[in-house]
């Protein structure tokens, strides 16, 4: 019963997330709203980690498993993928390098600014 209760809680939060998503004047994924809900509930200690417990960890540990069904759907698009495979790979590689460079250099920059501010504070 414990697991069923945990799952009911998680599903309930997801339903609320979807409901809020449908009420918003702009489009925003319901699942991400649910995630933000859970984060707020945990941070405000209304919800404790135990309440989500083993069921949440089961979902997190086996996360990859849940991508199999939508992934297999690629069968429907076999012809499409065959016609654009090199574009797909190039777009992926270009954005990978751009994203890596931008994020790591920004971290270095922010840390440098923080050090400057700290030094000025001491002086």
């Amino acid at each position, binding site marked *: 019963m414990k697991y069923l209760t945990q*799952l009911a809680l*998680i*599903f309930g*939060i*997801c339903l609320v*997330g979807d409901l809020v998503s449908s009420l918003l004047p702009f*489009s*925003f*994924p*319901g*699942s*991400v709203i*649910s995630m933000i809900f*859970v*984060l707020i509930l*945990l*941070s405000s200690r209304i919800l404790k*980690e135990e309440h*989500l417990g083993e069921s949440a*960890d089961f*979902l*997190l540990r086996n*996360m*990859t*498993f*849940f*991508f*199999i*069904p*939508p*992934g*297999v*759907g*690629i*069968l*429907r*698009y076999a012809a499409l*993928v065959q016609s*654009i495979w090199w*574009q*797909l790979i190039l777009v*992926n*590689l270009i*954005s*990978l*390098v*751009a*994203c*890596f*460079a*931008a*994020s*790591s*250099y*920004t*971290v*270095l*920059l*922010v*840390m440098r600014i923080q050090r400057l501010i700290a030094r000025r504070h001491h002086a």
Partner: protein
Amino acid sequence: MLEIAHSPLFGIMLSIVSFRIGLWVNKKVGHPLANPLIIAMLIVVAVLSVFGIPLDAFEQGSSFIAMFLAPVTAVLALTIYRQRKILAGAFFPVLFGTLAGALAALSSIRFSATLFGLNEQMIASLLSKSVTTPIAIAITEQFGGIPALTIASTVITGLAGNLLAPVLGKVFRIKDPVAHGVGIGSCSHALGTSKALELGEVQGAMSSISISLSAIWTVLLAPFFF
């Protein structure tokens, strides 16, 4: 005989068995290219085509599994919550690092995909591919893209990030472990993070916290690129 393939139980069983084999092969080979998700997908596709089972029959059951994507996303909050102390230690560098990463990913995808002549539906499927898969799928569905294409791209990106993480660090002369970790997590989610964990504890922790942050930034910013 093949009537049984139309039972929802068939799709669920086939997915579990294929994933089990995928995990086993991954453990035996011990290389990220032997990705359990790719192996499981190949097994499912092979079984369906060998026995001439239509995709619709498989989806009778597999749609139950796909239904769990939203709950999986919701409990991702738990991983952010558990890392709150690590995040607090490098709050601004990580916050702005992941923001810059998300912006760079979105704009470079938009730009290069347009350059290569991909249509709007393709771009909708690719925009989110740098972030963790359940959120990437949610963004793709929001813009009317093809989730299957997003999954293929997140796996390609994740594997490339995993394999290239040390090289990228050298090429861009990133010696700081925090910067290296945030870079890896922002651009290649969990698959890259497993390499970051090998590089060091700080790299691993930073990469791991960057997965969820860059996903949130991407959800917020993606509408401006579509």
